[in-house]
């Protein structure tokens, strides 16, 4: 970063002293990275967050991880290596108690997420920007990630405009989850408008029947 231009010197040497990354600092950085990664992270990915000079000693990451494993040997969480890399997990003796925490009801999805999902369902293929335009607020990456992770939504291409934004569509799993055979089994907008009916008695079998009778075919052009 703060590179002094001193080209004649053995730059490796100077880089190290400039950056002043002691083995201890490397260790704590690795600690924070593994904790923050939120899932197991490979050594390569950890290494990618350092510059070449910082990791001039090839083994320093290994050392750091070894030491961390030792540091956490007797604590409430432990550092373990799994197939895809390293992660912290609740230690054996604390795991049962921690499990109680996870037993709790999962959090409800936010209104923002529901609205985003609904728009993708009814307006696919749609870009994040288009969703934001309709909703009037930005859509967090977190929401898109959750929807993709839940496999309700996927990227089916990129719009050919500057920035090549991804276009999202719903998946088969989305249909399965909501017990639909096809997308057009989703309630029509008219029905949604009359949600009082839904509120009164939620029965989608009925709803679909009413849809048949509803028959409104004025203008079909989406966009």
């Amino acid at each position: 970063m703060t590179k002094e231009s001193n080209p004649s010197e053995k730059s490796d040497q100077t880089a190290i002293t400039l950056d002043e990354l002691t083995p201890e600092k490397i260790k704590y950085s690795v600690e924070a990275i593994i904790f923050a990664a939120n899932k197991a992270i490979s050594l390569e990915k950890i290494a990618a967050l350092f510059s070449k000079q910082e990791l001039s000693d090839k083994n320093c990451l290994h050392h750091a991880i070894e030491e961390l494993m030792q540091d956490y040997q007797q604590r409430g969480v432990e550092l373990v290596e799994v197939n895809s890399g390293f992660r912290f997990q609740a230690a054996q003796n604390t795991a049962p108690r921690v499990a109680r925490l996870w037993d709790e009801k999962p959090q409800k999805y936010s209104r923002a997420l529901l609205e985003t999902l609904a728009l993708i369902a009814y307006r696919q293929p749609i870009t994040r920007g288009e969703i934001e335009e309709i909703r009037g607020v930005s859509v967090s990456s977190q929401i898109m990630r959750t929807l993709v992770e839940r496999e309700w939504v996927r990227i089916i291409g990129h719009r050919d405009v500057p920035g090549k934004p991804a276009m999202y569509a719903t998946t088969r799993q989305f249909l399965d989850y909501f017990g639909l055979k096809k997308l057009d089994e989703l309630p029509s907008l008219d029905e949604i408008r009359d949600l009082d009916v839904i509120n009164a008695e939620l029965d989608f079998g009925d709803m679909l029947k009413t849809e048949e009778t509803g028959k409104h075919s004025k203008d079909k052009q989406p966009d």
Partner: protein
Amino acid sequence: MSQVTPGPQQQEMPFAYVQGAPVTELPKDLYIPPEALEIFLEAFEGPLDLLLYLIKRQNLDILEIPIAEITEQYVKYVELMQDFQFELAAEYLVMAAMLAEIKSRMLLPRPELLDDEEADPRAELIRRLQEYERFKKAAMDIDELPRMGRDTFPVYLEPNYSSPEQEADISMKELMLALQGVMQRAAMFTRHNIERETLSVRERMSMVLEKINNEGFTRFTALFEYKEGKGGVVVTFLAILELSKQQLLEIVQSETYGVIHVKPLSGGTLDND
């Protein structure tokens, strides 16, 4: 403000007309390159902000605003904005009027009997400027607080790796209520934009797009499933037309009566995530 007087000056186009008089040069003390003017004005959060700027630029204390001077500068900016045909927010004009009023009151002899509060016509303006300045600073303070995702990164264990992840349930009703909410806000209900029929087209659009993204050049005919019958063919055809209209695919025929191909226009990239 700006009357376009047919200016005979060939050598230099007047930069602006201020009260009918051509101005070939911006006043030195507020010169901004014209192209920067827009950005410059956008940088202000309204009349109070602009006033604060004018005051601060002269290293003056809010409490000692030289009303005449500031008013004049302020009005010049407002005129500049008009000359550049910015949509001039009403707030700026209101402030100009207020400044003018204060100025005129200050030029009048002071009635001696009024109590202090009313004695200084600038008092209310000063109060507002001070109040605004506090929150302007508070906003900057808040911006500097350690913020999640920028300065602070909470860390958690990977949730529940032992058993399948707990995922919240959504009912169709919730989904519909959410859609209702967003539609109402976007006033999309005014017309029936989306209907049953188009939904099946939309679904088909996704399918077609995926197919051609996977295969690059696809024979037009390969996109149709004949066993779906007439209805299915029509839906697919509408989907292709809609995709073409949205410039998501291109329909290519290299020679007359030749084979028609369809290829993706979105750079051919497909994320398989």
